[in-house]
C-alpha cells in the first residue's frame, strides 16, 4: 500500500536538548497509526514537524509523496486536519459560529457541521457559547473542527485526553467511521487502551527514539509470556508453562473437570512499553 507519510532520519534539537533522535517510519494510506509515549517523549514535536509548524534539525519528511517544505499551501492544508495539544476556540462565540468559520475556510457545506457534531455528540450544543462548555466538550469541538472537512490525513495529538469513557467511545466510533471512509489517521496518545482499540500499527517513542514499531497484535505475540493461566472451579488461578510438562498438567486439570477457563498471558501495550523502556506510559 502507498505511503502517505515517509519520515527518514528525523532529528530535532532545541538548544542542547535533543527532542527527537534519528527517527524513521512510514504511514500507509488508510491506516490508523499511533505514536505512543509518555509526556516529553517527542510526540508533539513530531506532529508539529509533520504539519509544518516546526522545522526539523535534520532528516527528511514526505507527505503525499512530496517533500513537506514545498507544499504548505491552501491545497495541501485542505487535505489534512490537525488537532494539536493547544488548539484554541473562540470562547465568546457559539459552537456553530466556531465551526461555521472553518466550514468557510475549508469550503465545506454547512450540512457537514451537523454531521460532525453528531459524531462528537454535541448536536444539542450548537447555540451554546464555547466558554460555557466543559473541558471535555471543548475538546470535542476542536476535534469536530479537525474532522469537519473529512481530510485525507488527520493528525490528532492526544485526542481523547480530557474525555470520559462514554464520549471517548463516541470519538473512537467516529474516528473508525472516518477511517473507513478513507481518512488516514496519525495519532499520539499515552492511553494504551486507545491505541489497542483503534490503531492498526503503533510506534513506541521513548526519549526521542522509536523503540518498537509494529501492529498491536504482533507486539503482544512477540512479548507474550510463555505460559497460560488456568482458572479452576475453586477460584484458584494456575500459571502453566507452554511445554510438555505444562501440557500434561493442563490435561490432568481438564480430565478432573476442574478447569473453568484457559487464558494465554498476552501483555497489554502498556506492559510491553514498560518492558521495553523501563517506564510507565502515563
Amino acid at each position, binding site marked *: 500500500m502507498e505511503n502517505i507519510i515517509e519520515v527518514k532520519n528525523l532529528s530535532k534539537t532545541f538548544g542542547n536538548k535533543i527532542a527527537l533522535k534519528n527517527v524513521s517510519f512510514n504511514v500507509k494510506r488508510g491506516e490508523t497509526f499511533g505514536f505512543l509515549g509518555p509526556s516529553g517523549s517527542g510526540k508533539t514535536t513530531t506532529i508539529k514537524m509533520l504539519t509544518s509548524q516546526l522545522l526539523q534539525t535534520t532528516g527528511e519528511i514526505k507527505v503525499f509523496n512530496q517533500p513537506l517544505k514545498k507544499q504548505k499551501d491552501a491545497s495541501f492544508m485542505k487535505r489534512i486536519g490537525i488537532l494539536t495539544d493547544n488548539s484554541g476556540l*473562540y470562547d465568546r462565540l457559539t459552537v456553530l459560529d466556531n465551526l461555521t468559520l472553518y466550514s468557510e475556510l475549508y469550503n465545506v457545506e454547512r450540512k457537514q457541521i451537523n454531521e460532525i457534531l453528531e459524531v462528537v455528540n454535541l448536536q444539542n450544543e450548537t447555540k451554546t457559547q464555547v466558554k460555557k462548555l466543559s473541558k471535555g466538550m471543548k475538546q470535542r469541538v476542536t476535534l469536530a473542527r479537525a474532522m469537519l472537512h473529512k481530510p485525507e490525513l488527520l493528525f490528532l495529538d492526544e485526542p481523547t485526553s480530557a474525555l470520559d469513557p462514554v464520549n471517548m467511545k463516541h470519538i473512537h466510533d467516529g474516528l473508525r467511521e472516518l477511517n473507513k471512509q478513507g481518512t488516514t489517521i496519525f495519532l499520539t496518545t499515552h492511553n494504551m487502551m486507545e491505541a489497542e482499540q483503534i490503531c492498526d500499527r503503533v510506534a513506541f517513542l521513548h526519549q526521542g527514539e522509536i523503540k518498537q514499531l509494529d501492529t498491536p497484535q504482533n507486539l503482544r505475540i512477540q512479548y507474550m509470556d510463555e505460559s497460560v493461566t488456568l482458572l479452576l472451579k475453586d477460584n484458584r488461578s494456575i500459571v502453566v508453562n507452554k511445554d510438555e510438562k505444562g501440557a500434561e498438567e493442563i490435561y490432568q486439570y481438564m480430565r478432573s473437570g476442574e478447569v473453568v477457563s484457559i487464558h494465554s498471558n498476552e501483555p497489554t501495550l502498556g506492559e510491553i512499553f514498560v518492558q521495553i523502556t523501563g517506564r510507565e506510559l502515563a
Partner: protein
Amino acid sequence: MTFSLKRVNAIFMKDYKDLLKNSYVLFTIALPIFYSMLLSKISDDDPTMTLFPINLALIITGAFIQAAIVAEEKEKNTLRGLLLSPASTLEILVGKSALTAVVTLIVILVSVKISGLEMLSIPFSALLIALSLIFYLALGTMLGLLSRTVMETSIIGMPFLLLFGMMSMFKPMFENELILNAIGYLPNEQFAVAWVTLSESGQIGDIVGELIVLTLWALAAVVITVITYGKRRFD
C-alpha cells in the same frame, strides 16, 4: 500565494460577531469619540492639535484595537487554528485587519462630526486616511504579534502611543532643531500638514512630499509586520 475573498470574509464575520461580545474592545472604541467631545470644547490653531481627533481614532482604534484582536488570537491559541487552515498569510492579515479598518473609519467619521472638523473632499480624505490606516493597522498587528496577552499590548504599545499619538503635544518641550525636525516626519504630523495644506490650496501637487513620507511609513510598517508575523505567529 492564494487570495480568497470568501476566506477573508469568513475571518471578518467571525471578528465582527466576536467584537459585539467583547466589552474591552467596545470600551476602547468609545475612547476616541469621548476625547473628540472633550476636544471640541478646546480651540487650537496648531494643525496637529486640530486633527488630533482623527489621529487619536487612528492610533487607538486602528492600532490598539488591532493589537488587542491579534494578541487575543495568540493568547487563546486560535491564531494557530487559522494558520493551520487553508487561509494564506495574506488572507489572514487582510481578514484580521478588515474589521478594524471599518471600525476605525466609522470612529473617524463620528469624531470628525463631533469635533466639528472640516472634511476635505472625499478622494483627498480617503487617500490620506487610507495611507495612515495601513500604517496604524500594520503597527497594531505587529504589537499584537509581539504581545503574549491582550494586557501586554498596553505595555508594549505605550511607547508607540506616546510617539505617534502624543509627541506633537510635547513639541513645545523641545528646542533642539533636529528633534523638532524628526517629530515633523512622524506620520501624524505629515498627515496633519497634508490635510491642512489641502484644505487651503486644494491641490494634490502641494502635498507630494507628505504623501511620499506617509507611503514610506506605511510600507516600512507592512514589511516589519510581515517579518514579525513570520517569526512570531506560532509562539
